[in-house]
């Protein structure tokens, strides 16, 4: 009886894993099966259209990469900077303790609330409307907590001996951080940044709230209206016609390729940086 119970719970664990795996595989097979036939050169390079079979996806692909780039430019320096401050400067003051609780809370705020913030702050008060810049600023705020937390845990892995050696040679605090601590923590920070950006690429809700257009052409400037892959998928999947659902699954295949490539490179950088310092 004991032995049976023992193996029962083991198999329960395996069973639960299998449920998740089967779900994931079904999802991928379903999406690829209905989407692959739609992925042609014309689809990938064509512009958006009201007619499902004529529509391409290029503006959404370009939009996805442009918004990723803009978000990276805004969020990386601020996020890494904040992480460095909390880990290296603000260890023992009350301001830093308050910041820490605040960041933990921000990480739990639903993404759609960031959309409401972006709508009022960037789209209306700063008059950016439904532009790339408004979208990127909103997504930057959304992923800041992720980058900060990742930066901090990467900095934690840097051994004290490196800092001490640098100080012993007469380097200042900032010189030590810039020349030794940051390079040593780069792998971990990079992993966090890529994961955060991959989250931004898949986000839909906040961008709907700040106001997304459905028919846009390939953008010329950051003030142009945007569309991104998730928005296009949402738009297509909300229509009753079968042909639009096929378009949606084709766009999902492209979106999944982008997120998977990002996640695998994050895992690669993490494995590379892990075990570099053994204490």
């Amino acid at each position: 009886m004991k032995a049976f119970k023992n193996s029962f719970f083991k198999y329960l664990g395996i069973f639960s894993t299998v449920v998740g795996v089967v779900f994931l595989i079904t999802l991928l097979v379903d999406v690829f099966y209905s989407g692959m036939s739609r992925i042609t050169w014309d689809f990938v390079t064509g512009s958006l259209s009201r007619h499902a079979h004529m529509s391409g996806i290029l503006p959404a692909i370009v939009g996805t990469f442009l918004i990723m780039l803009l978000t990276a430019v805004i969020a990386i320096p601020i996020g890494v900077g904040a992480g460095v401050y909390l880990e290296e400067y603000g260890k023992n003051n009350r301001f830093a303790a308050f910041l820490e609780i605040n960041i933990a809370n921000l990480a739990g705020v639903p993404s759609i609330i960031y959309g409401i913030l972006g709508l009022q702050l960037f789209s209306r008060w700063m008059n950016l409307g439904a532009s790339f810049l408004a979208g990127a600023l909103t997504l930057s705020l959304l992923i800041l907590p992720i980058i900060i937390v990742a930066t901090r845990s990467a900095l934690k892995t840097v051994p004290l001996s490196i800092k001490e050696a640098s100080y012993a040679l007469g380097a200042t605090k900032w010189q030590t951080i810039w020349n030794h601590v940051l390079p040593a923590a780069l792998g971990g920070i990079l992993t966090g940044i890529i994961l955060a950006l991959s989250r931004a690429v898949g986000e839909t809700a906040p961008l709907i709230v700040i106001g997304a257009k459905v028919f846009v052409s390939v953008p010329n400037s950051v003030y142009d209206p945007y569309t991104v892959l998730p928005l296009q998928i949402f738009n297509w999947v909300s229509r009753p016609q079968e042909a639009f659902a096929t378009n949606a699954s084709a766009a999902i295949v492209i979106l999944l390729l982008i997120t998977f490539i990002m996640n695998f490179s994050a895992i690669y950088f993490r494995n590379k940086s892990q075990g570099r310092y053994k204490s």
Partner: protein
Amino acid sequence: MSLKQRMFKERFMEVLLMLCATVSIVTTLGILFVLLKDSIGFFSKVSLLEFLTDTQWTPLFEDAHFGILPLLSGTFLITFIAILIALPLGMSIAIYLSEYADRRVKKIIKPFLEILSSIPTVVFGYFALVFVTPLLQSFIPGLAGFNSLSPGIVMGIMILPMVASLSEDALNAVPDSLREGSYALGSSQVQTAFRVVVPAASSGITVSVILAISRAIGETMIVAIAAGQQPRLTLNPLVPIETITAYIVQVSKGDVPQDSLGYQTIFAAGLTLFVLTFLLNSVSFYFNKKFRAQYQ
């Protein structure tokens, strides 16, 4: 560089980095300000009592009602279904990973959980609407095209990695001495897991469940795509409903004139959502602190 210049640079960098950190406080204040400002406008026209007790939510209709209850019931119904799926599956994966699986198995399961958690939510929404709902309809005849059952199940799978990995962290944090003590008294693996390790990790596991609930309440795309747009005070998982998040999406997509009462509803709804998730996150923060204090 002279000493003075160097001192200045040091100070300058510290202030610059501190400003970066301050962005997070500005964000929090911004969220509070934006939500409160228009909510105050909303509540000057609709009484709080009506908001909390009216059983209809029809702000954009001729006969306007502003009761948040139907949106709340929709939100909680879907969250409940999602937790019903994610908790048993996630817990048994966590117990399996921390108490049974060897390193080789862990190396396969962990990346799989990471892939699952990296999938954009709009993709899950598509899958719920286009695949899971028709599949369920084939053996649940009364199931509507939009319902809370299908997005609830899919959301359960979506938060599964979160429950599994947070619970596993909690189980791993339990010191081996407790396990060894239990084995020394002649307990089996399963007795040790369920009578010693799980109770010892209970506050850590509570954290994972609360965070999962909070995540499910705030999830938007799955419900906006697959649950419908009909605010309805019901516990029936087979009919279309609407959640708080889906309502915000619905208004954002439409052309409700800005600064009208209908437009202000998204801020009142957003504030409700924010308060809910804030409370849950704070409770989880408390349990987390308690749990860490226990074993560190």
